[in-house]
């Protein structure tokens, strides 16, 4: 009985350590997190509460009501540079962030 209890405690401690490790990884820059995830088995998604952890880890500092950080980005064809602040006072702006994969 005692041994079983000890095993359970050790397993629990390992689980918590892995959980903390995964959360730390989620807080790293995307390329670092991606590299870590590529080495972990798919079972990671099932063993850990991945979704709530991700949503918390990637909450970000920007809040509704705050000034949106300005940017000046090239259009895809490099024909122009769009500055967010140049649209101020004109119309609302919708930003759809994403990539191909």
């Amino acid at each position, binding site marked *: 009985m005692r041994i079983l209890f000890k095993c359970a405690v050790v397993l629990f401690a390992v689980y918590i350590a892995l959980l903390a490790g995964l959360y730390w990884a989620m807080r790293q*820059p*995307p*390329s670092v*997190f*991606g*590299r870590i*995830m*590529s080495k972990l088995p798919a079972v990671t998604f099932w063993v850990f509460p991945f*979704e709530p952890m*991700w*949503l918390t*880890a*990637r*909450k*970000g*500092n*920007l*809040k*509704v*009501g*705050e*000034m*949106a*950080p300005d*940017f000046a*980005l*090239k*259009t*895809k*064809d*490099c024909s122009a540079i*769009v500055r*967010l*602040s140049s*649209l*101020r*006072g*004109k*119309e*609302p*702006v*919708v*930003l*759809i*962030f*994403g*990539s*191909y*994969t």
Partner: protein
Amino acid sequence: MYQKYKDRAAFFVVYIEEAHPTDGWEMPSNLKQHILVASAKTFGERDATADTCVVRLGIHVPALVDDMQDSTERAYTAWPDRLYVIDRSGRVAYKSRAGPYGFHPAEMAKVLQRLVPPSRAAQGPPAYPRR
């Protein structure tokens, strides 16, 4: 949604760092769909992938490309995908939760609806003839 609101709001796709590149966290679904993209080393490479993405996915929204320092991605915690609405005064009116779980265009549309003037079609004909 873009077709519905494009005359009353500015839409931009911001192409950021790949989520599942071949040299990173590749997904089985990428292999299945033959979407194999290595992470860009130069802005030219990133821009080329952005172009492929926009063309293959048939995206009509104007696309911007994040710089190689990923400054916009970092400022908006945007990776792997995320939606924002910025109001006329330049403030954040809507911020989706982090994608892919938090990516819900319908939720965003509700906020956008409040910010834009009603479309001409929705206003209908004037209630009385104008002189």
